[in-house]
């Protein structure tokens, strides 16, 4: 399918000309204080590049939805600046920002048909009737809902409503598309299908896309970059690979994927580190920049980087190792996950081949990993 909404000059309205592949969104020290104990969004700076798929990820209450609402213009800034391309939109009312938004519960107008809902933004922009009809038909085809235009939202399934909401948000060639947990209300299979759909539409429309979710898997699957939110601040921004492979903080390491965490306290990171009598080599390249700031640090290892052997003699040369006891074994289909008790209170995880059935509960083992596979982060 080659409908290039917002790119073909014939279909593009004046607003699309400004956007092209979508606008750059720049947040500069953005703060929103609802007057509660701490600000909902606290000095967030973030630049979202034109055409980029940026996910705002975080647990509930971390400020990601508030940030989206600030970009959309639904909340007023306490301080800071928001720019769309060069334009300062900090005080521009929502209806003049020209951003397409898909809401968590879709917010389809119940008194309008599918066609009526999609035509709504075009009518507000006084687009000629014939043009409206053409563009509605075009976008219905893009979201694969042809023939449903005279249905009312209540007559559609959740997935179909989702597509209508998407169609309504892109039909007027917005400068960017903002999606607020758009898949939250759907069941697992439908989610997967719609994730593909959203990616396809993003590719075809080519607009800047800001996606809010608390689901790390969803974020990893979809995004060009992820901004991880924590207590109203951005913990780390980067590609999914960076966040998973090179987390700066313990929070990031824990929020994306599993890991075994060894608290290191405040010991120097220039040479080998010790943990409960174990001595481990440190690869300077795997020490996060934030770990050098002087606070407590922690050593984290992903389960797929951890090997398990019966005794220390079997540990490869140069690897770091620790004694552990098998606490539980989970069969995951593609592999097995060993739950390990390490020392007093560290819960370790090691991924072993599915075919390896040699361990039983209570076995004393040695876990090992290579120094370049570990990561030392700020705790």
């Amino acid at each position, binding site marked *: 399918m080659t409908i290039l909404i917002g790119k073909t000059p014939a279909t593009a309205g004046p607003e699309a000309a400004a956007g092209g592949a979508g606008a750059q969104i720049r947040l500069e020290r953005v703060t929103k204080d609802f007057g509660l104990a701490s600000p*909902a969004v606290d000095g967030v700076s973030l630049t979202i590049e034109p055409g980029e798929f940026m996910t705002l990820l975080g647990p509930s209450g971390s400020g990601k939805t508030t940030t989206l609402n600030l970009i959309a213009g639904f909340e007023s800034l306490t301080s800071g600046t928001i720019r769309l391309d060069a334009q300062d939109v900090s005080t521009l009312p929502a209806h003049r920002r020209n951003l397409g938004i898909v809401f*968590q519960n879709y917010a389809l107008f119940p008194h309008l048909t599918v066609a009526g809902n999609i035509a709504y933004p075009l009518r507000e922009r006084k687009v000629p009737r014939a043009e409206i009809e053409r563009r509605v038909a075009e976008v219905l085809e893009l979201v694969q809902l042809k023939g449903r235009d005279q249905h009312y939202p209540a007559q559609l399934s959740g997935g179909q409503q989702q597509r209508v909401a998407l169609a309504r948000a892109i039909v007027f060639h917005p400068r960017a598309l903002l999606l607020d947990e758009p898949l939250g209300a759907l069941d697992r299979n439908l989610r997967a299908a719609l994730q593909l759909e959203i990616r396809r539409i993003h590719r075809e429309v080519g607009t800047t896309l800001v996606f809010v979710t608390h689901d790390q898997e969803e974020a990893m699957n979809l995004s060009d970059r992820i901004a991880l939110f924590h207590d109203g601040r951005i913990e780390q921004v980067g590609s999914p690979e960076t966040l998973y492979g090179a987390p700066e903080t313990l929070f990031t390491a824990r929020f994306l994927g599993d890991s075994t965490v060894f608290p290191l306290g405040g010991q120097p990171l220039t040479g080998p580190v010790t943990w409960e009598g174990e001595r481990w080599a440190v690869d300077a390249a795997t020490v996060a920049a934030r770990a050098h700031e002087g606070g407590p640090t922690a050593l984290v290892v992903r389960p797929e980087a951890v090997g398990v052997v019966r005794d220390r003699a079997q540990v490869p040369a140069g690897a770091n190792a620790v004694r552990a006891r098998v606490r539980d074994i989970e069969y995951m289909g593609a592999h097995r996950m060993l739950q390990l008790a390490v020392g007093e209170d560290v819960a370790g995880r090691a991924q072993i081949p599915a075919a390896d059935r040699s361990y039983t509960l209570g076995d004393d083992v040695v876990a090992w990993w290579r120094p370049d596979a570990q990561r030392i982060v700020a705790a």
Partner: protein
Amino acid sequence: MTTSRPRWLPRPGWLLIVPAALLLGGTLGMPLWQSFWRSVHTVVPVGEPGTAQLTLEHYRALFTDGVTLRVLARTGKAAAIVTVVALLLGYPYAYLMTRVGARARSVLVVLVLMPFWTSALARNFGWLVLLYDGGLVQRFLGLFGLGDVVLYGTATGVTLAMSQVLLPYMVLPLYSSLGGIDRRLLLAARSLGSPPLVAFWKVYWPLSRGGVAAGMILVFTLACGFYVTPALIGSPRESLVAQLLGQRTTQLLDFAGAGALGTLVLVVTLVLVAWANRVGGSMATIGAGFAGQTRSAR
């Protein structure tokens, strides 16, 4: 998501309540205030010098003029009888509403709301026809040898008509209270050996008392303020407090006395309604939407 309400109205959107406040305050609030003011000041005849002084004389008069107290007592008695009649008729009806299917229930709701939406005068006229000497009710009673019971122009007739109008106020709070009772409790009580009536008395009735209290207070309160029905069907010699109030105003031109009596009625009403709200949350269940409908019926 933090919920702060979107501003879709101009910033001081609450100013939209001002017209309503002006209309209600100017048209109803102001007269009520003036009425109260007159009731606590001495009367200064028009054209004579002098300023009104604060006084409770008009309230003292209510209790010493020999008429007001008698009328109040009569009103209270009539309202109490109406309340009991409404309870006796309303309880089984509300109970039936909880037991039938959705379709039958909506028919029952439409029927119980009938007094709400039929014109007050039309209904009072209907009662007048029914209760007239030689009318339908009297002849029906005649079948049981009670043909000489006089209804038109008597307290009995008034009670009968008022109970009908007020039945919705009994049935609706009752229905919402009975509807919330798990009927399996009754079955459980019976399985534990209680005969049906005992099971009802020990299990069901105590659980329904909130609705009963709310309905009774509400019906009593509304019955105290009835004006048209007693005037059309009752006897002038047995007037109730509403008629007394009207009479003081239009015939005796005793505006201060009327103010005192009106204030008394209003205070009693508001106290009773607040009480009903506490016991049963009844105003909410009734939905003031049709609550207003009986206004004209009183």
